[in-house]
């Protein structure tokens, strides 16, 4: 069957040719921003769940003799025993000198630690996240046994990091919103240009009985097609960038950073971007045409 041509020849407009390119750039930016938000969200979840169940007890640096074996430090032993007896504590691990040296190695180097360097004692405590111990009572009890010690639940540090990731997420959402707004403004502009360029054809359509919605359909189907095309191009360009980003993050090899593996639902969100761009373009074109024509006599 013969394919019907559009009554308004929008596919011949020069302005329409640039729209997919602009939409592609917008979708590219939106894809990066969304992926960034998703990674930030994973980061926040990981730190939150990973550190909220952990405490670190820091004992004041003892003399060289005390730090040597660990086992011989009576204060440390008392603290470990106290922690093990505390309800809500699921595991207690006392870090020995070698563990602490390993933690400090990135900063001090392997030759930096000598036996006479005073090191604080560290005890890693895992608590039941559902029924955590009363932190203030625990602090008082530990201080009674080991004055000058520190019970750190990481909340201050964690709080700042979580604030940062939330800020990244919020910025990403703002970026996506701005991208949608900019795309809509562009489509509205191109639609208005189209209305002006095809004024005579539109007048003929009106005179032979076309409703405004008929004219709007011409524009919206054109915008849908351009938006979809641009969206697909933008997404295809974003994928290699995301892959590169993931590759660079993995090279950091840090326990702080999560695996930058997006879940299927997150991938679907990214894949939906071209659909979303097409729908935004279509609705913008429709609203622009209907509002412009409604103002006509």
């Amino acid at each position, binding site marked *: 069957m013969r394919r019907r041509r559009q*009554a308004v*020849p929008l596919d011949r407009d020069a302005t329409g040719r640039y729209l997919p390119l602009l939409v592609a750039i917008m979708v590219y930016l939106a894809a990066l921003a969304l992926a960034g938000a998703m990674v930030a969200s994973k980061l926040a979840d990981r730190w939150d769940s990973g550190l909220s169940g952990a405490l670190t007890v820091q004992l004041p640096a003892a003399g060289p003799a005390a730090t040597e074996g660990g086992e011989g430090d009576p204060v440390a032993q008392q603290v470990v025993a106290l922690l093990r007896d505390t309800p809500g504590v699921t595991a207690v691990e006392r870090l020995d000198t070698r563990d602490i040296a390993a933690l400090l190695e990135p900063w001090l180097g392997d030759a930096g630690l000598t036996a006479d360097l005073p090191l604080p004692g560290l005890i890693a405590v895992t608590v039941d996240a559902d029924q955590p111990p009363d932190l203030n009572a625990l602090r008082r009890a530990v201080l009674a046994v080991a004055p000058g010690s520190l019970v750190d639940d990481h909340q201050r540090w964690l709080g700042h990091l979580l604030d940062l990731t939330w800020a990244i997420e919020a910025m990403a959402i703002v970026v996506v919103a701005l991208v949608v707004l900019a795309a809509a403004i562009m489509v509205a502009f191109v639609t208005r240009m189209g209305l002006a360029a095809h004024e005579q054809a539109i007048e003929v*359509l009106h*005179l*032979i*009985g076309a*409703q*405004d919605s008929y004219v709007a359909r011409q524009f919206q189907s054109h915008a849908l097609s351009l938006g979809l095309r641009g969206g697909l191009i933008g997404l295809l360009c974003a994928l290699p960038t995301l892959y590169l980003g993931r590759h660079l993050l993995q090279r950091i090899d840090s326990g702080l950073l999560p695996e930058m593996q997006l879940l299927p639902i997150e991938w679907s969100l990214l894949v939906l971007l071209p659909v979303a761009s097409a729908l935004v373009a279509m609705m913008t074109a429709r609203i622009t045409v209907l509002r412009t*024509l409604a103002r006509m006599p």
Partner: protein
Amino acid sequence: MPFSIQASAKGNPSLVRFEDVALRYGTGPEILKHISLQFDPGSYHFLVGASGAGKSSLLRMMYLAQHPSAGRVTLFGRDVTELSRPETALLRRRIGVVFQDFRLLDHLTARENVALPLQISGQAHGRSDKDVEELLTWVGLADHMDALPPTLSGGQQQRVAIARAVIGRPNLLLADEPTGNLDDRMAVRLLYLFEELNKIGTTVVIATHNESLVDRFPHPVTRLSVGAIAPSGEMAKTPAAGPGANPATAKSAAAVAGRESP
């Protein structure tokens, strides 16, 4: 939903009714003044006058491209100034127009141009495709159905425009110089097509300056001169006006002089 013909405020079933109508574009001079006329359903009229007499402007008001600047225009029983945009569109579907400058869409083929009113009004494809082909064949364009308007001669474009105006079997057919680019043989042939449409109930109004052509048909003539209905000659072929008079009544400006516009 199709538009129903309603009786006018005075119970008059006129399809087209002008009451002391004037028209000016912007702040310019009056192009038309004191126009009062009425065309009944199923009537056939010629509107004659020299170039610039206001024929096209009068037709523009009839196909709702222009509202009067004074007076009252009633189409299908409805005051045109009271129509909403959707109502205007529905009413226009009942009016076929042959524009003086054809107004074909250059990127569409002859066939697509003619099918446009059917497409706009959402009529089924299969049947309408056949109707379009039959009509184009009838107007002598069987070999040009897939031609684009710019590749057609003036006369051929005019015939496409005529086919587009009549394809939807309008209740009111308005034609502005529909034979201007046609030889006499084709002109008469098309006027007979309009006659056929008129016989099945279409009200036909033809604006032309070709009085020799008009003389071949026994239809009433309304004569325009410098923006007004000429005080004499316009009723030359019109039967005495009266209730139910057919084909038409066309009242002169003199006959309605002094009527207050609503």
